């Protein structure tokens, strides 16, 4: 069996948060070491928020994983689409 590289995590930002961060989406290699974890444990949205030094407080945004709202401490899977959503104003 060939050794597969796990699919990266796609990270997406929207609206004011996208403009403040200066980017709309990027991929995060799934296996990358993230500081609080001694080994390559699955990262959480909170880990990535901090590692990427996104602007503002995580408590002010909502997290979505694969188009569903999720908790900031959910363990991410390879290939997940993670989105940070600033306050919503629809309708």
């Amino acid at each position: 069996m060939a050794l597969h590289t796990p699919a990266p995590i796609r990270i997406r930002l929207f609206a004011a948060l996208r403009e403040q961060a200066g980017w709309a989406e990027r991929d995060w290699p799934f296996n990358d070491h993230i500081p609080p974890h001694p080994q390559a444990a699955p990262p959480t949205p909170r880990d990535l928020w901090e590692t990427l030094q996104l602007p503002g407080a995580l408590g002010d945004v909502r997290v979505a994983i694969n188009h569903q709202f999720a908790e900031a401490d959910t363990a991410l899977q390879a290939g997940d689409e993670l989105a940070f959503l600033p306050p919503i104003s629809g309708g």
Partner: protein
Amino acid sequence: MDRVAQLQINLHPAAFEPLTLLSRWQHNGAAESQFIGRVRPTASDGAALLALELEHYPGMTEQQLENLAAGCCRRHGAISCLVHHRIGRVLPGEAIVLVAIGADRRGPAQRCCQELLEALKHDAPFWKRECRTDGISHWLTGNTPL
């Protein structure tokens, strides 16, 4: 009565005419409750508004609208549900949202329409940027009060 409501949900990149869409809607039930929201001519601070820009999260927005509509119709026993929502640049006076609910009785129709409107305002990923006529624009961080 665990009847599943008929849902019809659309995002429109261009202006839509609510009454035309309502006239094409195949729905059932003796009671219909409808809501149409339009863009105001002024920004939230009272300045003249040039346009509202509506950003959304393609894929998730549709999915969330469907989840919210299905849940709301299930809770109220509604029979049919129509949601049309603008995306992109919306001009003052243009319709931004249309919600219509068909049900057997007026109470469920009205409550479902009201609840779904609140749900989509708070839980569907849309973001409004106000573009004022003086060139200033900014993102709104919430909805107008109920």
